[in-house]
């Protein structure tokens, strides 16, 4: 075999394998989605959204769990979103070149990849022990802590995309930095910041580990945020590992609901970004 044929052969083999690798990745996405749809759709009905989680063997739905997940995600993003946006604003504007910003960026990146179960332990020590019991608000705080680094990062990135000329024009009109930021920079980066918030919501709404020992679970309807509250991920965890077929079916339906919502959020975030002028991430 000539050297030329050999090189061509190696090339074809390597490129073929890389195509295969991509096929493997896509296969698993497809396999997971297919399983979810196949096993989850059977349990999708009106009762799923109108009835509470049942005891073993009787029928029921996921209303309290869906409600709890929505409540905790909303509180989580209401706490974490503004803090993340303000911190991101500091990094992109006031402290752009400050030495402490380098440290904060680094710490934020570490938090971004920190295991979520550790955040759960932290909130357990911080709130659950002090309050003396598990509570929805503790769960929401854990979710907020996970949402903060995501929002910080996207806010900083998006504010950096705003052209310097716009900021200069505002400053030249005599505006203080806060006025420039709130009246010029934020509106210009609005869809980018929104994307960050959507990604943060997508990230926290599927989190299970930090809720296990903060919000815990609740078999019944509860709208008291100082008490344990049902939530989809923990219900899926408990029901899927149970030996009862009706619980397992509910777990699959819950898994389908949560995945579809998160995929819709992620795709929505991408659509928002691609509608940005000049932004095609």
């Amino acid at each position, binding site marked *: 075999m000539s050297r030329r044929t050999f090189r061509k052969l190696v090339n074809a083999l390597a490129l073929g394998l890389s195509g*295969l*690798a991509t096929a493997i990745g896509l296969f698993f996405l497809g396999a997971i989605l297919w399983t979810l749809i196949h096993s989850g759709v059977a349990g999708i009905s009106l009762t799923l959204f109108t009835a509470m989680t049942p005891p073993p063997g009787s029928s029921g739905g996921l209303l309290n769990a869906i409600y709890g997940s929505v409540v905790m995600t909303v509180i989580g993003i209401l706490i974490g979103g503004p803090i993340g946006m303000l911190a991101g604003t500091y990094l992109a504007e006031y402290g752009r070149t400050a030495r402490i910003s380098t440290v904060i960026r680094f*710490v934020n990146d570490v*938090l971004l990849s*920190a295991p979520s179960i550790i955040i759960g332990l932290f909130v357990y*020590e911080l709130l659950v022990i002090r309050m003396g019991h598990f509570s929805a608000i503790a769960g929401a705080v854990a979710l907020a802590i996970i949402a903060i680094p995501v929002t910080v990062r996207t806010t900083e990135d998006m504010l950096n995309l705003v052209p310097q000329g716009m900021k200069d024009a505002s400053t030249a009109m005599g505006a203080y930095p806060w006025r420039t930021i709130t009246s010029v920079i934020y509106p210009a980066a609005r869809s980018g910041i929104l994307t960050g918030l959507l990604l943060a919501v997508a990230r926290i709404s599927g989190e299970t580990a930090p809720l*296990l020992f903060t919000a815990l679970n609740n078999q019944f309807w509860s709208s008291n945020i100082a008490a344990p509250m049902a939530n989809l991920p923990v219900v899926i965890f408990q029901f899927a590992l149970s030996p009862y077929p009706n619980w397992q079916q509910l777990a699959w339906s819950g898994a389908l609901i949560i995945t579809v919502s998160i995929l819709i959020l992620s795709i929505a975030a991408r659509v928002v970004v691609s509608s940005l002028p000049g932004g095609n991430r």
Partner: protein
Amino acid sequence: MNTVTAIDGRHASAQRLRERVFQGATFAAALLVLLLLGGVALSLLIGSWPAFAHFKLSFLTREIWNPVTDQYGALAPVYGTLVTSFLALLLAIPVSFGIAIFLTELAPVWLKRPVGVAIELLAAVPSIIYGIWGLFVLAPVLQRHVQPWLIDHLGPLPLIGPLFHGPPFGIGVLTASFVLAIMVIPFISAVMRDVFETVPDVLKESGYGLGATTWEVIWQVVVPYARTGIIGGIMLGLGRALGETMAVTFVIGNAHRIGSSLLAPGTTISASIANEFAEAVGDLYTSALIALGALLFLITFSVIAAARLMLLRLGHRALSSV
């Protein structure tokens, strides 16, 4: 004239006040990020103190985990964490590398975006979904088709043989590694893709100009140029794998022992905490679990910090969603 100056003065001081309040708020929020990490470290230290004070260094070296007699050692979960993550990387790295190459060098433009988005969506799927899928779909498949083959063909081999002894349980260390691998593939390939895209076209074109094949350009131009970024991406994936909880908890089997076989059930730090923490009674038991958390924090913090430093040195910031 006087009134105008007065109004202007009031206006200006009000503006200055707002400026200081707003700037202070952004700075406070930025400091909070620092405080969060400090707070996490401190609370883990305080929470784990009773366990470390009671068991001293033997906490790290003992395999025993017995809530009845209140004896705890971290060896089994630490071992499980390291082994599953290592195996997951072993499986995930070649696949992620292939995906990154496909996305940057091979895919036609119309295919790049949809395939890239699909892989990113794989990263958005919550870990509990991987867990439930791993338990009900992957574990039975491995048990019926893959593990018997491994036992028959790799079991008799010297050296690596003992790793594949024993009955095919379905759930266990190997299955957990498999699920972890699927989970970290999108993270590693996203970083690799971004790093590959930073390679200047001129470099690649000079390779092609010399008559190199696509593969030769990738292996001899792109990879050496992007080496730091590739390693950083792999370590970021390692950080993910080490701390991943739900996906592992479903399929690892939760046995506090170190089996010689990869097919046997085991446990990891995060799986132990997830399984036992809410039901743990007694201060020492709780503290031992928090001590496990502290160890996990230490391990992942070093890995993530090293990865971030590498990516930072590259002057490159990885995907915001990662």
